């Protein structure tokens, strides 16, 4: 194979693309929320555009979005984070959380984790539809939103 270039690419099976389209659909309105910092809105729009374009890759993309939601009080507190990460080598949809109470102690856990790699591999854990439900729930309540766009110059996806 020496001298031949091996082109890597993401591989999507079954309803993967339909699912990622739903993720884009869920995120799109978030970018239009009043008061959202322009750079965060831009990052979300870029992620949404890249997700909608799949399976066509977006060269240079490097975007991370995190929505965090807290519940409970002193007796028992919980926090959950829902993340979307896109770069040239990986697409990741994930969630994690923690619970703390004086009596039950502190626990941290991963919930859903869906990853597609540009070498064609994929790793899925948890129920993907539940991730969408959890995200919708968090977005409808008090939450914090972080979105960072470190896409390179060759990322020409319109935002």
């Amino acid at each position, binding site marked *: 194979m020496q001298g031949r270039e091996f082109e890597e690419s993401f591989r999507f099976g079954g309803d993967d693309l339909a699912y990622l389209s739903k993720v884009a659909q869920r995120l799109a309105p978030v970018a239009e929320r009043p008061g959202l910092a322009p750079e965060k809105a831009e990052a979300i729009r870029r992620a949404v555009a890249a997700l909608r374009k799949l399976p066509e890759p977006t060269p240079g993309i490097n975007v991370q979005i995190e929505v965090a939601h807290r519940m*409970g*009080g002193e007796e028992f507190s919980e926090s959950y984070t829902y993340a979307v990460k896109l770069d040239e080598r990986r697409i990741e949809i994930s969630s994690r959380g923690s*619970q703390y109470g004086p009596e*039950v102690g502190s626990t941290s856990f991963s919930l859903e984790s869906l990853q597609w790699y540009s070498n064609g591999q994929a790793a899925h*854990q*948890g129920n993907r*539809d*539940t991730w969408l439900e*959890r995200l919708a*729930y968090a977005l409808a309540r008090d939450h914090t939103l972080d979105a960072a766009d470190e896409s390179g110059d060759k990322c020409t996806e319109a935002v």
Partner: protein
Amino acid sequence: MAMNRRNFFQKAYGTAGAALITTLGRPEWLRGATARKASDVLYLGPDKIKVTRMAIGLGTNAGNVQRELGLQGVADHLKFAFDRGQFFWDTADAYKTHPHVKQALKSIPREKVTILTKTDVRTAAEMKPALDRYLQELGTDYIDILLLHGMHTPKWPEEMKGVMDVISEAREKGIVRTHGASIHSLEALQTAAVTPWCKVHLQGINHAGVRMDSTDPAVVVASLRQSKAAGKGVLGMKVLGEGALKDHMDETLRFVMGIGCVDAFTIGAANREELAHVISRIEAV
């Protein structure tokens, strides 16, 4: 105009429901005069696990709705239900409501309740420590019903064999009293119906095909009947279509209790008022 049998069902269930009911035969609820209660006691599946007709669901929107009540709030919710005869609790590792069950068990004797939980573990190596963790989180030394969570491929018994073996071993040791799967596709449901390991299964069922594994309830009901005939315990979820059928509660309750192949069903109430309302509607329909 005289109301014939089909007209009656059409009025009660709508056109689709009428077609379904007339296809499937006379509902059990019309055969006997026995009133149904949420707290009716039943013995589920081949291992005859004692349950109530309605389980207290702790997984609405992946548990978010119940967890909003707080640790003690959920415990109080379960106590409120228990005091009304509802001793069957439906949780899952993924709902993150195990600590809430443990809190409730501080005021309710463990042997008085039936706990169903679900696992998202996908390998045998992960199952044993996960099981130990569930027992610790739930504050119990046994789980009444342990289900594989969210099976959706038709080959799930092959894919999950290692996990199933660990759970079978736990059943032999008395750590798990019975086992099965929660189902998220029609193909997986059809597999469940013919899989001996699956002694209990839980799947979406309502009169309108909302949030179910098929939009045609008749297809799902046919599979459930097959399971029932094989002696399995059949549990329903999404009876209210995850809230979408709240305004059609009577129709969906009448349907699920009338088809004769759902032993018990789970409903996740957000608070005491909702729970009391559901209990009262089950008695009324």
